[in-house]
């Protein structure tokens, strides 16, 4: 069981991420606009959108059911639970009972379950196709994620995300090539999960991530938008926590946490910059071609596994 200070850290971390998530997605929009040499919206635009939506009426199709109604709440709650388990400011996981790699992967599956089901539950065929595609992406991504993390966990000797990060940052993993390849494969899988070009267009309606949202409106839509922003932040934070833990606090101390926070913000900023570059240099890939790309991820993760086996 976590101590009180760990528990406090976890709750603060989850609430803080929840609070700044629209800012981070605004930042991502801002960086993208700069690359287009557009002025673009302010980085606070997403807060304004959410505020506006919160004042509107909640509309739903006549056939929509309870799952459609409650999905936004389930999604945000689960995302915040994941946020309590990821090592972000610290090397260790704030609540280690959540910070197991298998638990985190399956908590994301919980979100995917309700997110897609809400599409079907809305009664709209378009949302249903979005749901089907969203789940298909999950099928392509999850094995890559699991293999890459499994290799890293084998190198570290534990499936706890914090332990993996500690082992990588302290250099006790004895196979650098395997670690690098696993990191690459994991980054690739997470990139697909982010819902950015070329695999998805998070901002476009009727695309994968927004597909199941076709029928959402008003405050429900506000919550889901908020949830998507939080999900993107968490996905990047997950990568940072496991493979780039450098600079985060090794112990629970005030200055350590401040240092960890600064390091985390810098890493987040850089990674979103890289994402913006990728996003702006590719075109949307056809959905049917995604498996051909994801084989690349499977290949990289398998190669990492082979390197681990032979101990390179």
């Amino acid at each position, binding site marked *: *069981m976590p101590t009180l200070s760990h528990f406090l850290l976890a709750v603060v971390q989850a609430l803080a991420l*929840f609070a700044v998530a629209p800012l981070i997605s605004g930042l991502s929009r801002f960086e993208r606009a700069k690359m287009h040499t557009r002025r673009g919206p302010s980085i606070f635009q997403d807060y304004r959108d959410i505020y506006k939506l919160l*004042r509107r*009426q*909640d*509309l739903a*199709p*006549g*056939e*929509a*059911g*309870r*799952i459609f109604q409650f999905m936004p*709440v389930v999604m*945000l*709650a689960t995302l*915040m*639970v994941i946020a*309590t388990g990821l090592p972000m400011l610290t090397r260790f996981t704030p609540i280690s*009972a*959540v910070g197991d790699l*298998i*638990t985190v992967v*399956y908590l994301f*599956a*919980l979100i995917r*379950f309700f997110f897609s*089901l809400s599409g*079907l*539950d*809305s*009664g*709209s*065929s*378009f949302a*249903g*196709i979005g*749901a*089907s595609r969203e*789940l298909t992406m*999950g*099928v392509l*991504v*999850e*094995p890559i994620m*699991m*293999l890459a993390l*499994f290799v890293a*966990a*084998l190198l570290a*000797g*534990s*499936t*706890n995300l914090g*332990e993996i990060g500690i082992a990588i940052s302290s250099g006790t993993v004895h196979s650098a090539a395997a670690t690098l390849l696993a990191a690459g494969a994991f980054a690739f899988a997470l990139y697909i999960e982010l819902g950015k070009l070329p695999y998805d267009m998070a901002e476009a309606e009727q695309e994968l991530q927004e597909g199941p949202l*076709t*029928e959402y409106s008003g*405050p*429900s839509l506000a919550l889901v938008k908020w949830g998507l922003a939080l999900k993107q932040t968490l996905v990047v934070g997950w990568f940072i926590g496991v493979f780039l833990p450098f600079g985060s606090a090794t112990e629970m101390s005030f200055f350590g946490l401040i240092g960890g926070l600064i390091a985390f913000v810098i890493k987040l900023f850089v990674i979103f910059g890289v994402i913006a570059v990728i996003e702006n240099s590719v075109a949307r890939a056809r959905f049917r071609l995604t498996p051909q790309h994801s084989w690349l991820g499977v290949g990289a993760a398998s190669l990492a596994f082979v390197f681990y*086996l032979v101990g390179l």
Partner: protein
Amino acid sequence: MTPLSFFWISILVSVVGALASILVRNSDSTAIRAASGAGIVASAAGLVSGLSALSGPAAVIDLAGPYPFAHFVLRVDPLAGLMISVISLLSLVAWIYGLAYMREYEGRGVGGMGFFMHIFIASMMLVVAADNAFWFLIFFEMMSLASYFLVIFDQNDEAVSAGFLYFFVAHAGSVLIMAAFFLMANAAGSFDFAAFRETSLSPTTASIVFLLGFLGFGAKAGMIPLHIWLPRAHPAAPSHASALMSGVMIKIGVFGIIKVGLDLLGGQELLWWGVVVLAFGAVSSVLGVIYALAEHDIKKLLAYHSVENIGIILLGVGVGMIGIAMNNPTLAVLGLMAGLYHLLNHAVFKGLLFLGAGSVIYRTHTKDMEAMGGLAKAMPWTALSFLIGALAISAIPPLNGFVSEWYTYQALFAGALEGSFLVRFATPIAAVMLALTGALAVMCFVKAYGVIFSGPARSENARNATEAPHSMVAGMAILAAACVLLGLLAPLVAPVMGNIASATLGVPAVMFADGATLMPGEGARTVLSTPLIAVLLIALAMLPLVIHGINARMRATRRHTEAAWATGYLPDVHMALTAKSFAQPIRMFFAPLYAVRKTVSTVWACLTRGYERFVCFARRNEPWADNRFVNPIASGVGVAGRRFQVIQGGDFRIYCLYIVGALVALLIVAAS
């Protein structure tokens, strides 16, 4: 002697119930009440028996029985206790559910259904408790036969042909099991399992015994490629019987694999046995769920998921065998415990899903999901139970399916950390297969729930559906509650499962829980806490709820408009997403794997066709042999008889002449 006495009560009540439901078969409603009443009492007694045996030392009773070569020995050890508890829990629920559900079959011999259900359940209980190979086989056959009659209950072409396939595979499996037992009996000099345990075989013989047993019980368990009967036989049976078949009977196959591989051959395991089990498990889990995705018959879909979950259970059992072979008792207990936990969980959620499917079919009178839709509003309790079952089978935390899959992952991980190259190579691949299975299962159950319970109603029956009768809802509610409790109370359940595993393997216990946290063994560096996750989920859900509620006063109230957006056209029922179109991307991406199924089923079709040809051949050749051998001899004898009749003229003087002739002939012989 509590376990055994309650065990006997349960068996006796079952037999009485079976006879009673046959005796009063002329009145359907009395037959239903008699069968279900006896069934509820019998399974309650069975539950007490099973639960009290969980912690126990094994209770053994040796009744000599009528055969001197095979004593009737019953042994209720913790493993048998677990199986008895699972059987009893599921049959208790099935009987409660059956009170209303069996009325669907009124006028079609409900008495017979009650009879076969009772025999089926009682023989399953006796199989897991029997401690003698001969009696084990007798009860195993009884179980197969009784379930065969449940499969063909509908009497239509599909049911009869499915039943035939089932009969065929079940007996092919029995033959292999028999061969395995005879090999062991030959070495042990007795049919008693106790003697089997004492005997050690040469590694070659042990391997042959193991493979025979593994394939024989694997056919019963429905692992790929011996699964072919399962998706046809389970859907054909009445839903509460399919819940028992999928929830419990196929577990007897897993039980048999554990019994042969880890109990009877205990300590003689070779490393490659475990790897073989692991390989079969991984393939079964992935292919099972992929084939499930392509189904739009709800019961077939669930049956394919049984194939998948048997695969997941085998992953745990495989690690258990690897652990014993590597002399690593902690690993062995972890693996077996993961398998047993998943066995229990799968029984609960698969039973629940089959009962849910049964309720839906009870109202819509079809198994085709495409003809359902929009049932969540008409059947809210069924929908909620089905949703819980769907979440549990998709291994969504914090429900029970997740806990056992987490332990399975941890067992695979622990196996990958230490061990020979083969094990280090095989276990992570199995883990990735499990991840793929998990993602596909999520997709499959989103589809199942979405197509059945969401969207527009796609048929007249679906539009007019109402909630299922009370006793059916009660049956589902019990299992739904069990899904939640087995997940949230995992810190209490896991140590019990661990004790069963270590008692079965005969090694010291391993620590699986501390307070509210779960862990895979003492020194493990990772933990899980389902109660904590549940508390966090509920607590953190308050925040979005509050945000959603803040402005509620300022805006107009929630409104459900007429129709969903359909690019400006009026939405039409035919526009609604179907089960087939939902799974289309997967069928496209995994086309080669579906091609494998076609090949496998062609092979099976060839076998079946070959068998039919053989029967035809036999039928044709039976008269041929008659014509060529039997008839000529018979008519030859007749002809000869008629020829000899000539000497029997009827004139007594000629007879006297014969006597004189014979006398003279004898005298000549005696003189010479």
